[in-house]
């Protein structure tokens, strides 16, 4: 699975421009804030989507993330790209949201084995169904493990990048991914679809 470093959210501006934009936005310049929002919204959305698994709650979360970004702008020093910095805050926002909510009270039921349609349609349906089961299982594991797994395994980001986004060490991320995978496989013991999907997605082996 290719890493997403250059696939999503690559800032279209240089670091100096990032700094200038951040400074103007931090001063309350609404035009700059809007420019920043438009430039970073795809990256923020992508990060949140990967962690949460759907667009269902994302409208409010994206707002929360950007409010946090605007609040934190004065501390942006340009050590990383503005996109990476925004993704870090989005990850933190997702962590807070996951930590607050309660796990669902009912388990997923298996759905019909054979889905109608042509090959591509069936494949997409399979992916969605597998992803639905995966995120339902992720709902029940530790938020930190979930985020590490979502970013490193589902989104295919390098561990170093996940470590930056989660403000953790690489070793910690590796351990979280491993634990998440182990927990998922345990939960998937009666769900071959989920088991197959988790195995297919791969991820880090035991640290």
């Amino acid at each position, binding site marked *: 699975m290719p890493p997403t470093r250059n696939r999503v959210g690559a800032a279209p501006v240089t670091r100096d421009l990032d700094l200038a934009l951040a400074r103007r936005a931090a001063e309350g310049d609404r035009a700059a804030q809007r420019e920043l929002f438009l430039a970073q919204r795809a990256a923020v959305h992508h990060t949140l989507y990967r962690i949460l698994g759907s667009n269902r709650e994302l409208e*409010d979360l994206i707002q929360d993330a950007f409010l946090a970004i605007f609040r934190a702008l004065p501390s942006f020093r340009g050590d990383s790209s503005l996109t990476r910095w925004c993704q870090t805050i989005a990850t933190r926002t997702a962590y807070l949201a996951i930590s607050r909510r309660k796990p669902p009270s009912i388990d997923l039921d298996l759905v019909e084995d054979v889905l109608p349609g042509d090959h591509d349609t069936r494949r997409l349906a399979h992916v969605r169904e597998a992803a639905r089961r995966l995120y339902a299982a992720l709902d029940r594991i530790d938020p930190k493990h979930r985020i590490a797994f979502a970013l490193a395994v589902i989104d295919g980001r390098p561990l170093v990048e996940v470590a930056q986004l989660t403000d953790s060490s690489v070793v910690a991320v590796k351990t979280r991914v491993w634990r998440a995978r182990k927990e998922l496989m345990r939960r998937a013991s009666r769900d071959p679809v989920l088991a197959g999907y988790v195995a297919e997605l791969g991820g880090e082996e035991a640290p």
Partner: protein
Amino acid sequence: MTDGTRSPGERLGPPPVEPMSDVSWARIERGLWSRLDAAEAAKDTSIERTPSRIWFRDRRVWLAPVLAVAAAVLVLVLTRDTERGTLPATTASVPAGLEPSRVVTGAAPSSVSFGDAHIELAAESAIVMGHAQGAPGVLLEQGTATFAVAPRAERPPFIVRAGDTVVRVVGTRFSVAREEELVSVEVAHGIVEVQHRGHLQRVTAGQRWRSSEPDRVARALPAPRADDTRPPGTGHTAGDTASAPDVDARTPAPDGDHRTASPDGDHRTASPDGDHRTAASDGDHRTASPDGDHRTAASDTRPRTPRPDRGSRSEPPDTARATYERLVALEARDPERALTGYLELSRGGSKWAAVALYAAGRLAADRGDRRAETLLTIYLRRFPSGANADDARNLLERLNGAH
């Protein structure tokens, strides 16, 4: 999907990231700026002063009699509410926790409980509920919300904010409506105190207050429908093009002259630098040049393109200018879309925002659209000394006179 084993060619791969719709992004952006505005307003020291402190500091003379009246009304409201059991059943319950909660309604109205308050939200409305310094508070982002609040005798005050307007509740049933920065408060029974940019007004049962006339309290209009998102007496929500029942979709003249005759005269967009041309007798409402275009209005039927304000020498973005020109041309073919476009342009930060906002108000007035009054009022609020300020005032007077 019978088992988990697949050949490499059949691997499912990661689930695709489903994009969000433009409507969702627009909603996110609107909510974001609204929340950002609220956060910035909260920093304002004048706002941070609690209404009760302002009351004590500025209105000591009134304190005793007002408290007496408030207490009497409180007792009355409490008694009536208890007797009637007026609080309707809720569809959702929000614990009065410290974390702010946001409730947004779509096409259908909804209701929510917040601590000891019951809130009915009209369609297309949004509120944020939370606590500040231990007191429950609601920020009305948009739309209309009707509140039934338990008497505050021993409880902390219940505060409703809508833009620059702060409503302090003594214990009552009332509604607050917000459209852009125009806010209205209508009290069904009980009493509230409304603070707005230094003005403080008490609004009692059957009365209505509007931010456009902050010193005046008027008799309330008939109760709005639950699904009506309009602020009472302020017209349709900006951008709501489908719900205007009284839109006068006039057909342009076949000779290409797309001017729409104003029922009461000339509504041209005036020059920002003082171009006050004589109104054409045929109801010419074309947009005049902002920099002193002295062409004879009656001899030229083309919509005029304004140029940047003389006070600001830098040329406005070409895109804004081009957009404005397209909208002027669009007025004849599709005035509703032109109006929507003007509203979009007016939300931006370009120098053309003022011109576009007035054009929206003028076009709405020409078409008999009830949003005209609201748009012109917002224009005057945002650009009190704008190039079209006099025209906007005149037009507003005519509209009010027509009512």
